């Protein structure tokens, strides 16, 4: 018997003695039993999309997360360009920007904007080593989110083709973009969607810039991840989806 079986057989023997609590014989039985006991930590609600935007903005304040509510892609692109213009460098000596290669971000049509600002602009496509190099050289990383959660001002991102994880992590400033039709009220609702989505090897919930309070409980933003985060909520009313 291999080490794996030995370990699990031992656990099987121990768990089987717990007759009171051991009710299932297979994983699916157990999962079914668990789903009969709902445990929502916050009450669910069905607010309007506009309420959600307000809630997201409100919950972002204590996180030091800057939220920009934009009307349409053009407005969003202009907002991003303004952030790039005024933000300063941290690790590098030249402004460069990298963005996820994702349909949402293609709508922004950022390349001409950054060309005007003379900022080299990269997409996360092509050769892996090239993407790595560009990510490390960029002071801003722009990412596309799958869903947002208003109650915790969270963006949820599944890792995948064109959407590597370091874009939201290595550059000093992270800009996350989310069309508001994918904004949810609670984490509970987000989990309900995740449960019915094929999940990749990696996904992440991001709620604000990196921070630490390890020195005398003094809050400092920018521990190891981005020191600054912007969430662009795009309202596409009147735009072709």
């Amino acid at each position, binding site marked *: 018997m291999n080490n794996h079986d030995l370990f699990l057989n031992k656990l*099987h023997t121990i768990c089987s003695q717990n007759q009171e609590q051991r009710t299932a014989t297979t994983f699916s039985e157990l999962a079914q039993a668990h789903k009969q006991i709902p445990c929502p930590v916050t009450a669910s609600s069905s607010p309007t999309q506009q309420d959600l935007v307000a809630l997201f903005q409100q919950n972002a304040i204590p996180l030091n997360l800057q939220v920009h509510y934009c009307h349409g892609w053009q407005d969003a692109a202009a907002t991003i360009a303004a952030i790039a213009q005024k933000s300063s460098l941290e690790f590098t000596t030249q402004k460069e920007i990298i963005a996820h290669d994702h349909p949402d971000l293609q709508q922004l049509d950022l390349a001409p904007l950054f060309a005007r600002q003379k900022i080299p602009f990269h997409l996360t496509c092509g050769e892996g080593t090239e993407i790595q190099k560009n990510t490390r050289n960029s002071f801003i990383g722009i990412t596309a989110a799958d869903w947002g959660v208003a109650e915790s001002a969270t963006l949820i991102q599944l890792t995948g083709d064109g959407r590597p994880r370091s874009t939201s992590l290595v550059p000093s400033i992270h800009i996350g973009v989310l069309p508001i039709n994918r904004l949810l009220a609670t984490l509970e609702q987000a989990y309900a969607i995740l449960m019915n989505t094929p999940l990749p090897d990696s996904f992440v919930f991001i709620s604000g810039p990196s921070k630490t309070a390890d020195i005398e409980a003094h809050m400092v933003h920018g521990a190891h991840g981005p020191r600054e985060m912007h969430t662009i909520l795009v309202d596409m009313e009147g735009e072709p989806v």
Partner: protein
Amino acid sequence: MSKQSAEASYTDRAHQGLNNPPLQKGLRSIQQGYGQGAMRIWDSLEDPALRKRVKAKRESTLAHLDIVLEELTKNIQQRGGNVFFAPTAKDAVNYVLDIASKKKVQHVVKGKSMTSAEIGIDDALEQAGINVVETDLGEYIIQLNQDTASHIIAPCIHLNREQIGRLFNEKLDIPYTDDPPTLTQEARKALRKQLLSADMGITGCNIACAETGHISLVSNEGNIRMATTMPKIHVALMGMERVAATMDEHASLLQLLTRGAALQKLSTYVSFQGGPSEKGSPDGPEEFHLVIIDNGRSKILGDPDFKEVLSCIRCGACLNICPVYGRIGGHAYNSPYSGPIGAVITPLLQGINNHADLCKGETLCGACREVCPVENDLPRMLSALRHKLAYGDAKWNVTPHDKNEKRFFAFWSRIVRTPKLYHLLIRVSGMLQRPFLDPDNMFSKLPGKIKGWTTTRDLPPIAESSFRHRWQQNRITPPKHVGHNSQEDHHE
């Protein structure tokens, strides 16, 4: 406290904690902020029975742990991840050393993990000539200071900004400053190099999810995401109980964890990893190893008295409310696990006799049970440990901790069951005590083995004439016409 004083006793370490002003200040701030804050969050939950239901699920998962771990393993292996089951700390360490040597690993970056401290992976890697760097800011400070953590979530609350400033000045060769943002920025610069160039990232696991086949890690700093994204190899060390069966169980545990730990709805980052990154990805590990560690946990699982403690999600709320931890700090517990949870789990993992003082040091006041997100009854388990120490226990290899104490109580039990002997003893003691009383008519210095009773307080004397004696002598008569003039008072 530095690693050199590993032999100091619980009492010595507790005294050192009490006499450490930066620690006292840190403890006050964390207890006033986080401990009280967590209580307020639970009190304001819309559904007061929520924690009970979450606990019920958690216990159900633990009762099916074999099935749950098998599902987790299957789902991770399907994505090309490796799962290794380690019966002991040594097995886990050897597995990691083996990967490190096969892959010629030189630099390891770590995310904060108590399990990694429990199995002693840092020392083992360093002995193998591998450079190991802690990347959580608090843990990094502790590592530079050759120190150990004094809180499971906030490892360096025993150091103030001046001490950290001097440490950075000496070890990082930067000008002295005690400004937290500047110090953090210096650590950010120093650690970024390490995080971007390491060959292996080692993390713990906050809560795995069997249904989807992921581990999940919470962090505010982003160091854990770095350590699981940039190096080519990611090794996650997981105590075998740190798993939710389903996503809905995960959802509630995660939210209770971040609320209990730091009053957050969510931590800045919650990252899920369930295998190596897909071929062609520019980042993420090429190899993913999950090491599932028993190291004494299956014995706890098999004991109806203690299996409840495996429900713990290590949020640290019990440390933030405990009156004992709040005075003596974490070093007294001499374990990666401090506070009330440490006082239960450390003896169970490392020997009840070896850590006999821990369960005796706690007061059983019940605050830890009230603040626990999964309502673990730690006071009950502390009492059970005391019981084992008093009477011995073959299953846990416990020998009675203090034979004299046992003899004394056997003697005392005999006396109180024999009234004549008891009354005689009280009368004789009442007479014999006189020379030992101080001018205030109190005991302020008891001799020999019982001197501990009076080191921090005075004891009142035994009454020269006992209540019972006075009653018999009929010296107690009802008071005459006291106070009011109601008729009932005049019944003589």
